[in-house]
C-alpha cells in the first residue's frame, strides 16, 4: 500500500510517522508499568541504559570515515582527562574538522 504525496497524502504520511514515533516513546514505559521492579530488573535496565550509548557509538565509529574516528578518539581522551562534556565534544568536532581538512 502506498500513499500519494498530494497535500493530504503528505499530512497522512506525517501522521503515520508521528504515531509510530509516539509508540516508541510511550511503549517502553507502558510495558514496564506491568513489570514488577526488583533489584534484578533494575540492574538489567541500568546496564541496558549505559549500553544504549555504546551500541550507538561503536557502529558509528566502524561505519564512519577517519574524521568520525578522530572525533570519537579526541572526545574520549578529553573526557577521560578533564571530565567536562562540552570541551570534550568541542575537541571531537575540532578533530573531525581537522582530519577531514587534511585528508
Amino acid at each position, binding site marked *: *500500500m502506498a500513499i500519494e504525496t498530494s497535500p493530504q497524502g503528505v499530512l497522512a504520511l506525517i501522521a503515520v510517522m508521528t504515531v509510530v514515533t509516539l509508540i516508541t516513546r510511550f511503549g*517502553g514505559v507502558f510495558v514496564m508499568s506491568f513489570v514488577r521492579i526488583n533489584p534484578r530488573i533494575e540492574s*538489567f535496565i541500568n546496564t541496558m541504559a549505559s549500553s544504549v550509548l555504546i*551500541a550507538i557509538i*561503536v557502529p558509528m565509529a566502524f561505519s564512519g570515515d577517519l574524521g*568520525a574516528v578522530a572525533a570519537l578518539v579526541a572526545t574520549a581522551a578529553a573526557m577521560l582527562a578533564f571530565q567536562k562534556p562540552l570541551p570534550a565534544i568541542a575537541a*571531537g*568536532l575540532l578533530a573531525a574538522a581537522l582530519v577531514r581538512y587534511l585528508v
Partner: protein
Amino acid sequence: MSTLSYPYQFESRKVWSEFFRLFPISLFVVAFGAAFGLAAIQEGLTPLQSILMSTTVFAGASQFAAVDIWGAEVSILPLVAVVFAINSRHLLMGASLYPMLREVPPGRRYALLLLLTDANWAVSAQDYQNGRRNLEVIVGGGLVLWLAWIIGTALGVYFGGLLQNPKAFGLDMVLGCFMLAMALGGRKSPRVLVAWSVAAVASLAAWKWLPPNMHVVVGAIAGGLVGLIWQSPETASSGADEEVADGH
C-alpha cells in the same frame, strides 16, 4: 504498599536550569535541523510540511530516512518499518527511566515522554547512574532541543543549508561525541565495562548481519543481559535479598 502515591517532586526552577544546560548542544541541533530542512525540500516537501514533520515527529535520524524514500508516492510499510526501527531505541530509553517515571502520575509521565530524545535522555540516564534523579532535564532539555529542531528546520527550508557542508565542521559527529562524553562521564565498574564490551560486539554483529537500524536495540539488550546476570552490589543490597549483599 501504596501504589497510588507519586512521590517524585518536580522542581519547575530546575526545568529552566536544564533548559539552559542543554542550550549549547541545541545550537548544534539547529545546524542539523537546517540540514534536514534542506533535504526535505529537495525531496519535494513544502516548507510547511517539513516544519510540521519536525514539530510532530521530532526524531531526526528517522526523518532523514523517511525523506530519503520520498517520491510521487510513499509505500506505507517500508516507511513504518524504517521509522520504527530507527526510533526503537526510544523504547529502551523510556524503559530505563521507569524507576523514576513510576513516581510521576501517568498523565504527566506520558506528557513528559513527548519530549524524550537522545540528548536529554543521555543526561538524565547519566545523572541517574551517578545517584541524581533528574526528570526535569527531559522536560527542560527536551523543550530547548525541540525548539532548536523546529527553528533549524525552518532555517533550512527558507534559507537552504546554513553551511555548505556541515560535515567539514564535524557537525555530523555532535550526537556521537555527546553520547560518548555521557558514557565516559558515568560510573565505570568492571560490571559496566563487561556490559559495554558485550554491547559493542553485539551491536557490531547486528550492524553487519541483521537488517539495517537494529544494532542499537540488539546491542543495548545484550549489554543489559550482563546486568541481569551480574547485579551491582548496591542494587542487590537495596532489595530484600540480604544473602546477595552478604555474599559480596
